């Protein structure tokens, strides 16, 4: 699926939630299910520093696609990270670089991307694109 298709699917999934609570319960669930990053990658140089919650991000390049794994010490952040990975992992570098992430806004989680939110998510998206950019330059 393309980045756009995945985003649209997520928007549809989220449209079934009637209130904030079920939405957040789902995000928390995603956080709990996120395949853990290899402990070896939870190092300081793979740490994206948000002000409050910490996010580790690792990128692999396999068969022309970027595979992201990540983790966070906060479960809601982890859930949101999981959404980002659903959308951007297993995609070609150039598609990641050129992607426009509108789904967060559409599913009503825009506040989590505000810079004051200090959850490291904004820096994470930036870092994902940087990895992709570096890899697409190599290709």
């Amino acid at each position, binding site marked *: 699926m393309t980045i756009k298709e995945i985003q649209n699917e997520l928007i549809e999934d989220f449209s079934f939630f009637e209130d*904030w609570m079920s939405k*957040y319960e789902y995000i928390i669930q995603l956080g709990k299910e996120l395949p853990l990053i290899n402990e070896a990658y939870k190092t300081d140089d793979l740490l994206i520093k948000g002000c*409050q*919650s910490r996010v580790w991000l690792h990128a692999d390049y396999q068969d022309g696609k970027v595979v992201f794994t990540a983790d966070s010490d*906060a479960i*809601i952040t982890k859930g949101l990270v999981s959404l980002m990975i659903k959308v951007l992992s297993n995609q070609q570098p150039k598609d990641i670089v050129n992607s426009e992430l509108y789904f967060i806004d559409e599913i009503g989680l825009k506040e989590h991307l505000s810079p004051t939110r200090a*959850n490291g998510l904004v820096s994470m998206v930036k870092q994902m694109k940087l990895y992709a950019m570096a890899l697409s330059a190599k290709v």
Partner: protein
Amino acid sequence: MTHYDIHSIRADFPILKTTVNGKPLVYLDNGATTQKPLAVINAITDYYTLKNSNVHRGVHHLSQVATDAYEITRKKVKHYINAAHEHEIVMTSGTTHGINLVSSCYGKQFVKAGDEIIISAMEHHSNIVPWQMLCEERNATLKVIPISDDGELDMSAYRSLLNDRVKMVAVTYVSNTLGTINPVKEIIKLAHEYGVPVLIDGAQAIQHIAVDVQALDADFFVFSGHKMYGPTGVGVLYGKEKWLELMPPYQGGGDMIKEVKFEKTIYNELPFKFEAGTPNIEAGICLANAIDYINEVGLNNISLYETELLKYATKALNDVEGIRIIGTSQEKSSVISFLLDGAHPYDVGVILDKLGVAVRTGHHCTQPLMERFAIPGTVRASIAMYNTKEEIDTLVLAIKKAASMLL
């Protein structure tokens, strides 16, 4: 709790009637900033409607009106903290500005290579970094008073840190993260035995505890207007005359001069020597309204009410399964930091926000303190004169909800 009529107090703060995410706002982030009473809000409008003009400059009527109003604040601050002289009250932009002014000007004059500065393990970054910068610049050493697991200063360790090389002791009156009230009077007395001046960071004390800088014998005392129901962008540096006279100016510019020639400038007298440039006039003037408001309610009443509320909140939170309170000092004021076992403070904060409860989460600008307790941060509820037991009950329910979702 009959120290005052809480309903009429709450009616004075319009923002308390607003809703967040469809829920009535429960504002428990007063350590970050307090809400403003109508008396302050109206004074701000009045200022721009009737008084706006630059201070200490013009001979025209409006400039005189603004200057008089601005100087009334200085008088009120003097009384509020019982300073000996009005010229010991330097208007700043806030606590951070005050500390930077002292570290820079006092440091220039008195701190040399090999000297030592003492701070404590529970300081806000604003009372760490300026001293660190000074120490780096002067090749001096920063010494830190350790704290106990309860969050109390180790006074015997403090005593052993004092010696003739120490040039300044800078400690907080009330910890913004732990709520600990430090024995500042004793800290000052001990430092003075070595002739060492003491700066007290009063940012979290000034709105809760009656402060008498002469009784404390503090050499410097700093605080912010916005944490005491006043406007943002104004603060106070109290300094003993003898120190302020000996310190060089902070910034050069207008207002701080008596005479400017290209060969040499004669600096203005106190306090103007430290007040270069046009200040935040609106905030400066309206700080007086905040002080009046506190005085009308009575700081003593506020103190009693808040102490009782803090006790209630501490008990209520201790009754919640899995809650661990960080900072359990005997003497505490208005702040409860806690962790919910197995949940990251950030996650708890997000859920509380959804339920209309405003708390602070994170390291509260005290990263070394978080390291001391080996935790990533805390959830902090901080109370003010307008908070109620019902709001504490809402907080507790919200925490239980967060626990059920997160754990």
